[in-house]
Each structure stands twice: as structure tokens, then as C-alpha cells.
């Protein structure tokens, strides 16, 4: 810019009738560079460290992000596993507390107490700690104080609970020779025995059934 303006400058005074006296010396010294302060030139450094740094940040950043993501994912796996385990343990705890409740059931306790031979106390008595006086009438409990704690079995319908069947055995007919009588008696005895055993079996069965029904 400065060079072009200085190159044009001599032409302007020539076109004018009275050139300015000051312009002359300028015209006499053409192409002389105008001096001006220019900004200090920055020393050109190598770009490699910078690119290296950027590259490093990039790699570290991406790598870090990747690691972070992986770590998060890993945590999610762990969380899922721990959650499953917590659920499992909670279920177990619930099952155990259910089992405990079952043991705590008054009926279960009563059955176990009765197994140990305990009966409800029917003669309540207290010792007054103040003066050691016994209130009430203390008496030892007896086995007879036991209470039925299970329902009676349901009565069976008549069809399942038949009456005992009675079988009448005819008496041996007389008027036989002693030998015949003996032989017959033996035969009868054997037959009776067989019958008796079956009758007894039936009666016993009936007793059992009745017992259950009662």
C-alpha cells in the first residue's frame, strides 16, 4: 500500500500548474521505502508438541470416557447381581420368619406342650411377694385336667360304618357214635376256629371304626 501510494505521488504534482515546493524533494527521491513499526515477528515454533498434547487429551478423554462407561456398566452388572442376591435373601428371610410364625402358632405350641405332659392349670394360685402370702388354693394339676385340643373326627355316614355282623353257628346234632361224634367235633372245632377268627376280625374292625367315629 505504502509503495503504491509513493509511486503515484510524483504524478500528482506534475498535473498541477503550481506544484507545491514541499512535494519536490519527495518526487526527487522516489521508491524510498517508508519506515514504519511492524509488529514483532513471532518466532515460529514446531507444532508437534501441540498436536501431541491435543492428541493426548483426545485419547485420554475418549479412553477415560470408555473406561468410565465400562465401569458404569460393570457397576450395573454388580448392582443387578446384588439386587438379585438381596431379593434372594429377603425371600429367605421371609420364609424363615414364616417358619418361625408356624412354630409360634398357639396350636403347635399346645401340641408340643401336651407332648411334654403339660395340662392347663385349673387351680390358679399366686404368691404375694410383699408378705409371702399364698393367694388362691394351690393344688397339683392332674392328668385328667387335660383338654382336647383337636376336633373330633367327623362322624362317618352309615354306609361306611356298618353294624357288626353276627353269624350264628348251629349246634352239633346228637345221636352219633362216639367215634363219629369225636370226628365231627374235631371237624367242627376246626371250622369254628376258622369262622371265629373271621368273625372276631370283623367285630374288631367294627369296633375300630366305631371308635374312630366316636
Amino acid at each position, binding site marked *: 500500500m505504502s509503495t503504491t501510494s509513493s509511486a503515484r505521488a510524483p504524478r500528482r504534482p506534475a498535473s498541477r500548474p503550481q506544484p507545491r515546493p514541499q512535494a519536490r524533494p519527495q518526487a526527487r527521491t522516489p521508491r524510498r521505502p517508508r519506515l514504519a513499526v511492524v509488529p514483532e515477528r513471532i518466532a515460529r515454533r514446531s507444532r508437534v508438541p501441540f498436536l501431541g498434547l491435543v492428541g493426548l487429551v483426545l485419547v485420554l478423554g475418549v479412553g477415560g470416557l470408555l473406561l468410565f462407561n465400562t465401569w*458404569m*456398566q460393570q*457397576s*450395573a*452388572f454388580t*448392582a*443387578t447381581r446384588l439386587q438379585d442376591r438381596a431379593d*434372594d435373601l*429377603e*425371600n*429367605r428371610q*421371609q*420364609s424363615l*420368619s*414364616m417358619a418361625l*410364625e*408356624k412354630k*409360634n*402358632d*398357639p*396350636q403347635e405350641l*399346645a401340641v408340643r406342650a401336651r407332648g411334654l405332659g403339660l395340662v*392347663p*392349670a*385349673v*387351680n*390358679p*394360685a*399366686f404368691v*404375694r411377694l410383699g408378705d409371702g402370702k399364698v*393367694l*388362691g*388354693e394351690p*393344688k397339683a394339676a392332674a392328668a385328667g385336667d387335660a*383338654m*382336647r*385340643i383337636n*376336633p*373330633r373326627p367327623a362322624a362317618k355316614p352309615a354306609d361306611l360304618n356298618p353294624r357288626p355282623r353276627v353269624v350264628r353257628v348251629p349246634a352239633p346234632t346228637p345221636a352219633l357214635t362216639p367215634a363219629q361224634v369225636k370226628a365231627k367235633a374235631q371237624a367242627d372245632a376246626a371250622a369254628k376256629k376258622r369262622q371265629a377268627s373271621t368273625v372276631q376280625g370283623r367285630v374288631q374292625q367294627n369296633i375300630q371304626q366305631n371308635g374312630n367315629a366316636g
Partner: protein
Amino acid sequence: MVVVAMGLSLFGVRAFQLQGLDPKAYAAQAEAAGAVTAVLPARRGEIVDRKGGALAESVDGDMLVADPAQTKDHAAQIARILADDIDVDYFDTLTRLEKPKSRFQYLQRRVPSTVATAVVKKLNKAGLAGVYTKPDPLRTYPAKDVAANLVGVQAQGRDDKGKITGGAGLESAFDHLLSGKDGKETYEVGDGNRIPLGDNSTVKPVDGKDLKLTIDRDLQWYVQRVLRNAVESSRSDSGSAVVMDTKTGQVLSLADYPTFDPNDTSTADKSDLGSRALQDVYEPGSVSKVLTLSSLLDEGRLTPETKLVVPPQLDIGDRTIHDWFDHPAIHLTTTGVIARSSNIGTALASRQLSDEDMWQHLRSFGLGTRTEVGMPGETRGLLPDWHGWQPINHATIAFGQGVSVNTLQMASAVNTIANGGTYVSPSLIEGSATTDSGETVGTDHTTSHRVISAKAASQMAQMMEMVPNPETGTAPGAQVNGYRVSGKTGTAQRVGADGKGYDGTFTVSFAGFAPADKPRFTVYVVVQNPRNGGGGGSIGGPAFSKIQTYLLQRYGVAPTGTKSAALPIDW
């Protein structure tokens, strides 16, 4: 330039299509690709007894379901393992596992989670696929039949109008309070794991509230067993028993028999599911005499020694009143009328009260009004309006016929005498709770009012001591060793199922309290239609005695050590 513009407008059209035309469908599609919505079930509140012992509790459960397409080929093996490990029927399960053209079959519902997961694990280990678990909350009743008639069963669901179906007892009456509100959670998953920074939203569940009863579980068990033995040995239809804390009105036990196991209602009789003690009405009979005569004592018309001549029979209009025992004209005191349980004596004495006065007194004792303890379906009983009374009505109502009550009503009425003449409203719920129908009930809302004077109450308590006395009374079996006991028997005719009159069967009962001079507990036992010819004294009395004996020991109530009242019963 044109190309860029065309490209952009294409994008624009696509964006409009996505966002403008049907955004929900696309959002749903995207969600379905990876999002999971899980219901966070609210924990159903527990029902516990006064000491915190569980009567109903909820645990995580699972249902076992099968995909028959997968199970068909190994059905027998799978069914055997299931039949062994969980309580299912082998053949039934086999049929389900082999169901043709089906991809979904229920095998068993409400299995405890540990059991369900264990059995599925076992099946998978054996290389048998096709059986899965799905969450299915499980309600258990660890004490089984204990307080079952009160606790009831959880409703199966709600119908279109929001009304619960299939429930019973407190579980049904307090369903809203117990059930809470389910929450919801939506999150994205990849391969079974939650995606860390994926979309998620959570609505937390609101757990149901616990319901604490005034019932004492162990006592309730004992009362139920005593009641069952009384019903069974007298070959009766049913029975109810109530134990009340005299001062507070808290119901420590309310037992019914027959009852059921709420863990398995499939075999239960529908009529056993509710509480007979509150839902059924009956005529109380002679126990009512203590109410009539204490009203007379309160009005100053009688004293325990007032002399009465009791004729062999009493004609009123075209009806004749008899006593339960044949007698010539006898000379009884008021105490004797109670001790010997004379209908004629009571009817004659009651003539000193006007219809209105008697009605007012009985009403004040709580007859004809619901106790409102929170149980569904409670009956108010029937105390006919005095305006319509004929002389015969006045006479029979005086000794407890022609008036109907429920068991808890009658127990509260007798408790008034134990409590020095002040009626205290019974309660079943500790604290305060609101039923689904909006009633607020519980011990916080206990009310009380004076019915008769303290003097009249104490006189009546002494008169009632003559009932368990073997020399004077009708119920020697009701004595409690070492204690003073007041009580009254009741043997009433029952109205037949057709409602047309008495059918020849009886309601027998015994109500009383101990210690007589410083009452702590009121116990009332009622047995319907005994077939062994027993009465209130021989069936109700011994049951009352057993319950009181247990109760007084359990709560550490020592005998008062004072001498029993000895009032003359005749002159």
C-alpha cells in the same frame, strides 16, 4: 444450494411425521425396544394381635406357570418333580403340562418365593425347560383358624364398580387401609441389566397400614378350643364366646365355632366365613333377667331381699308363663329369682316398671344398637318399640324372650354391671382405623355412659354370685377355684328358621365376670341348639369357668381373698 434445500425439507417432513402425526406410537415403539415397566407392589398391611403377634401377613410369593409347547415332551418328569416339591396334584399338573395348542398354563399360585425359585432351578438343572415363575404376593394366616372369623380372608379383587369380591371379615372391611397403593417403575434394560444412564422414572408405592386388634392371640386360641369342645360334646349347631376387659371394653377374644382355616378357604362352608357372634341374632333368655332386675334395683323398686311369692304359673291374656322347673307357689327373694332363674318371678317384678322405662333401660344397656366395632355385616338385634308392647311382651322381654341380640351386644350389656353400672362401648381395633365404608372405629373412640347406679350394679353382682353357688344356684360348674364369681345362665327357646315361632330347640348361654367384688373380665358363652339336653348351667357354665381360670392366671389377677356374698334366696 437447491440440493441442500431439498435435503433439509426432506428432513423436515420426516421430523413432522415423527413428532406431529403420531408421536405416542413411536415413543411406545422406542420404549418397547428396551424399556421395562415394573409394578412396585405396595406391601399389604399386617393384621396383628394386641401383642404384635401376626394374624395375617404378606410375603413375596410366586406363581408357577408353564409353556405347554415346551413342557409337553417331558411332562411326566416335570410333573413328578412338582408334585414332590410343591403341593400339587400329579395328574392335574400332568394334564396342564400337556395341554395342546396352549402357550400358558397356571400350575400353582401363591407359592413362597424360595420354594418356587428352588423348584425352577431344580427343573433347569435337570434340563427341563418351560416352567417359569411370576410374582404373586402371598397372604398367609400363620395362626390358621385362630381369630379367622374376625380376620376373614383377603378379597380376590374388585368388580367394575370398585366393590370388593370374595373377601370376608376385617380383611374385607379395611381393604383400602390395608392394601395401600402400588407404585410403578420404568427403566431401560440391556441383556437383563439396567442401562446406567438410560431413561427411568419411579413412582414409589405407598404401603398399606397395619391393623392392630385388641385380641389376645393365645387367649383367642384357648377360648376357641374350649368353645369347640363345648359345642362338640353337647352336639350343638354352633357357638360363640366373648371375653371383654371390664374397664376398657376391649374385646380380648371373640370366638366362633364352626370356623375355618383362611389359608385354604376352598373347603370352608360359606356360612362359617363371617362372625356368627356379630351377624346372627338370637333371643338371650334368662341372662336378660339381670338387666331387667338391675333396672328395678336402680329405680329403687326392689332390693336383693325383696320378698316375692312366685305362683306355679302366670296367665297373661291367653298365654301362660311357666318356670323351667315345676313348683307350687314358692317364696323367693329377688336374689332367689336370679339364682333359681324364675321367669314368673321376673315377669311379676318387672310390672313395677313402665313399658317405656324398661325399654329405655334395655336400650341404654346397648340392646337394639350396633356395637360398631368395625366388623362387616353386624346385626343391630331387635328390641321392639315399647309403643307396640302388650302385657305379654312386657313380661317375656323381661326374661329375654321376644327380644333379639348379637353375642357382643349381650356381653357388653352384662359388662355394664361388672363395670359399676357404666356401659362402655366394646372395641376390637386398637387405636383408630377407618373402614372402607367410612366408619372410624377403635379404642380411641370408646364411649361410655351410666346406665344404673354403682349401688345397683354392686347389688346385682352380689346377687349373681348365688348362681354359681352349688347350694343356691343353677350353675355350680361355673365356679372358678379360689375366686368369687358372678354369673347368670340363659336357656332360651329358639325361633325356627321359618321365623314363624319357636321350633323346640334352645339357645343356652352363660354370662359372668370375676372377681365378683372387683371385676376384671366379662366372659359370655353362647351355644346354639345343643342335643344332649344340657342347659346354660351345664354347657355354658363349665366353658365359662375354664376361660376365666385361664384368663385370670394369664393376666395375673390374684383372688381378692374376700368372703363370697351370702344372700337369702327364699323366705
